[in-house]
């Protein structure tokens, strides 16, 4: 007979990650609310650079994805993994390194992003030292997880663990590829890939950050915590297996749907669309599996707030995973892209799916971690309704805003002119929707504060069960027999499972990305497109630092409504020196790809000093520090050298004369600005001149000369 062993589960690490989830959730959502309020009252940055929308928007997204959801993942994984494997975590030391390492990364992000240290890749903005720290801490997490799997007492790996394994391996691959960059200084790096290739890899990452950070680990948590909360096994384990393999295989292909109608080759866009539509099947299979787990227990859903949270979470997952594929259809994407429709869609997923499932898990876990009952079921029910109403009030106005703005962008008069030629008209029209969105966010956050109070009181009335006693039979050595089922074989072999999952997720990545990197014809070169001058390069880095890409795209799609408004549509060959690419994903302001030569220098000067003087009613904040701060040329030569390494055709020795050339161009622009009426001492040394040099260059490489018509 097998010997029964007694051991303990580490609850303290689960509690610590739970506290971090709650704390960073509050912080991340408050920053999000602040950003939402700045879109109504831009003066809420209090004239400081580090509180502007362009800098705190990435702080919000990073905080809620990697701090709130990230800690939520670790909380759930550390609780469920131990129990599913009937083993304590492999190493308490690794658990602590993982916990404190992750929190240190979050603090580093919270400091560096408002300071403007950003790589500008969406959801991967953190600079290279933090990227390395993330990789190291992620490896510690992996070692701890796989160590636990190896010392397990249970032979079979439950499907939740497969989702955790797929998450770990895919996030590793995505993080490495999307952060291939060469450091220029401690807080500045230049990505290896440029233009359309950088865009494809970024959105392969960006989409799969949603897939393998916000979705697959949470599906693992759903498959564990929903049966626990409902006290019944999952509806169909067979369906969960199909859900897993189909989802991880298909998800990785869908990234290009973020780049429809851009300069990305058509075949890559088509693959993105096809696989996005195919995603509906496994996603809805998973959703139905979750909801059907509650069959015969719906009477309990009426009473139990935990199940209510989980039902709304799974429903939101179903809604978001139906809407996502629909938004990937080109004709729908033509309307939705660059608008608040996408922001609304994302928040159905984050507020509804990630948020509500996290809250349900926290309410389920906290009493068990403290050996007591939940302080108040009534308050949990109140939170549930605040969370649900908050999500509705957040998303519905944004859908409305997205449809309104997009239809205004595309409307022509009977004379064939744009009905709303001034972009600002389409912004001021949707400000009331932004106010309602902020109200929705406020309601949602009030609910979170109610939860914090409830959990705090629950902890106060109990005592932390730091090490929970358990017993289980020692693991039996399995003797394989002839005709054994293949899945039974792989379920017992985590390393083979790891390899299988890696192969699955890599197939899509390799087929899509390798041709882009290897086949030159995918990125046709344009003879008139030249590298940036040193001054333009510094101006571009100021544009990146201020987070302009968060509100302004640089990608004119081939629609009449866009070419009429902005000019010639964007070509992939125009971006071959763009490291990083700055196409953007949202137009709170107009596209800037052809803004070069559109206005005089003095217009930009006055616009940056106070946007309202040039565009009354604008919600863009002023950038007065650009007029005060000197251009930093410390690393100009180093940037040129890195770009030369990456085959940007600067002449040999150009790095040594870069600063001199920068000053000559700056003096020339400053002189022109003076002739246009700008009166400022030592203007040529100021950052505003570099930014103007960059803006005036944008899109001009293929613009015909107005006099000769040549380029």
């Amino acid at each position, binding site marked *: 007979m097998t010997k029964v062993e007694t051991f303990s*589960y580490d609850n303290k690490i689960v509690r610590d990650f739970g506290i971090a989830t709650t704390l960073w959730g509050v912080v991340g959502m408050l920053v999000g609310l602040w950003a939402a309020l700045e879109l109504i009252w831009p003066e809420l940055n209090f004239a400081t650079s580090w509180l502007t929308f362009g800098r705190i928007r990435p702080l919000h997204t990073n905080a809620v994805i990697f701090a709130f959801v990230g800690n939520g993942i670790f909380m759930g994984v550390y609780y*469920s993994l131990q*129990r*599913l494997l*009937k083993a304590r975590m492999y190493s308490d030391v690794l658990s602590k390194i993982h916990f404190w390492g992750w929190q240190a990364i979050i603090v580093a992000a919270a400091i560096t992003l408002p300071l403007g240290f950003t790589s500008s890749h969406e959801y991967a903005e953190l600079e290279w030292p933090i990227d390395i720290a993330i990789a190291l801490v992620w490896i510690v997490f992996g070692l701890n997880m796989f160590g636990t799997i190896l010392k397990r007492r*249970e032979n*079979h790996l*439950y*499907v*939740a663990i497969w989702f955790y394994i797929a998450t770990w391996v895919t996030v590793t691959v995505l993080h490495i590829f999307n952060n291939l960059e060469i450091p220029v200084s401690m807080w500045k790096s230049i990505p290896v890939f440029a233009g359309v290739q950088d865009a494809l890899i970024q959105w392969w990452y960006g989409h799969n950050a949603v897939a393998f950070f916000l979705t697959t680990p949470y599906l693992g948590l759903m*498959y*564990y915590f929903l*049966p*626990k909360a409902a*006290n*019944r*096994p*999952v509806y169909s*384990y*067979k369906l969960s*297996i*199909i859900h897993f*393999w*189909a989802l991880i*295989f*298909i998800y990785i*292909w869908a990234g290009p749907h973020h780049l429809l109608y851009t300069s990305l*080759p*058509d*075949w890559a866009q*088509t*693959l993105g669309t*096809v*696989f996005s539509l*195919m995603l509906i099947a496994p996603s809805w299979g998973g959703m139905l599996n979750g909801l059907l787990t509650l069959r015969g227990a719906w009477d309990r859903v009426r009473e139990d707030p935990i199940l209510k949270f989980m039902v709304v979470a799974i429903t939101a997952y179903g809604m978001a995973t139906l809407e996502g594929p629909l938004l990937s259809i080109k004709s729908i994407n033509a309307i939705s892209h660059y608008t608040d429709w996408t922001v609304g869609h994302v928040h159905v997923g984050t507020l509804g799916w990630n948020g509500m499932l996290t809250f349900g898990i926290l309410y389920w876990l906290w*009493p*068990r971690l403290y*050996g*007591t*009952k939940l302080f108040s079921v009534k308050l949990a029910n109140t939170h549930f309704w605040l969370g649900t109403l908050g999500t509705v009030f957040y998303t519905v106005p944004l859908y409305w805003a997205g449809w309104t703005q997009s239809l205004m962008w595309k409307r022509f008069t009977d004379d064939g002119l744009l009905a709303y030629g001034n972009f600002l008209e389409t912004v001021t029209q949707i400000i009331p929707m932004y106010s309602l969105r902020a109200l929705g966010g406020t309601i949602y956050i009030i609910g979170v504060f109610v939860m914090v109070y409830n959990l705090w009181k629950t902890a106060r009335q*109990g005592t932390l*069960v730091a090490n*929970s*006693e*358990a*017993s*289980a039979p020692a693991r039996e050595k399995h003797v394989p027999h002839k005709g054994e*089922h*293949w*899945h*039974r074989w792989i*379920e017992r072999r985590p390393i083979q499972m790891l390899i299988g999952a890696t192969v*699955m997720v890599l*197939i*899509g990545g390799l*087929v*899509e990305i390798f*041709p882009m990197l290897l086949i030159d014809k995918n990125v046709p070169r344009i003879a008139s497109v030249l590298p940036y001058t040193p001054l333009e390069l510094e101006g571009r880095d100021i544009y990146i630092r201020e987070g302009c890409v968060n509100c302004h795209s640089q990608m004119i799609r081939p629609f009449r409504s866009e070419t009429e408004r902005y000019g010639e549509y964007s070509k992939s060959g125009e971006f071959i020196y763009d490291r990083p690419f700055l196409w953007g994903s949202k137009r709170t302001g107009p596209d800037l790809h052809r803004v070069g030569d559109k206005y005089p220098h003095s217009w930009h000067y006055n616009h940056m000093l106070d946007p309202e003087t040039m565009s009354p009613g604008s919600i863009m904040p002023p950038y007065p520090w650009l007029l005060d701060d000197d251009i930093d040329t410390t690393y100009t030569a180093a940037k040129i050298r890195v770009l030369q390494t990456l085959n940007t055709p600067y002449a040999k020795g150009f790095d040594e004369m870069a600063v001199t050339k920068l000053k000559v161009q700056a003096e020339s622009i400053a002189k022109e600005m003076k002739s246009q009426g700008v009166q400022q001492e030592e203007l040529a040394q100021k950052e505003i001149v570099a930014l103007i040099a960059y803006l005036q260059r944008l899109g001009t490489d293929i613009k015909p000369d107005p006099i000769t018509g040549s380029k």
Partner: protein
Amino acid sequence: MAKYILEAAGNINWMALFALLTFLFIFLLSAYLIFKKDTEILKHIEELPLSDGEHLHIN
């Protein structure tokens, strides 16, 4: 639908074909094998979240 998808893939038809056929193969294979699976083992695995061997006392 399939014709449109393949036409839209331009001159890289093999990629769309490869992707769709690979998925179809994996989906059908996993579905076939899973429905042949031993129900006793399945029953054991699906009960794993409910049997963690923990001695929990809630006051």
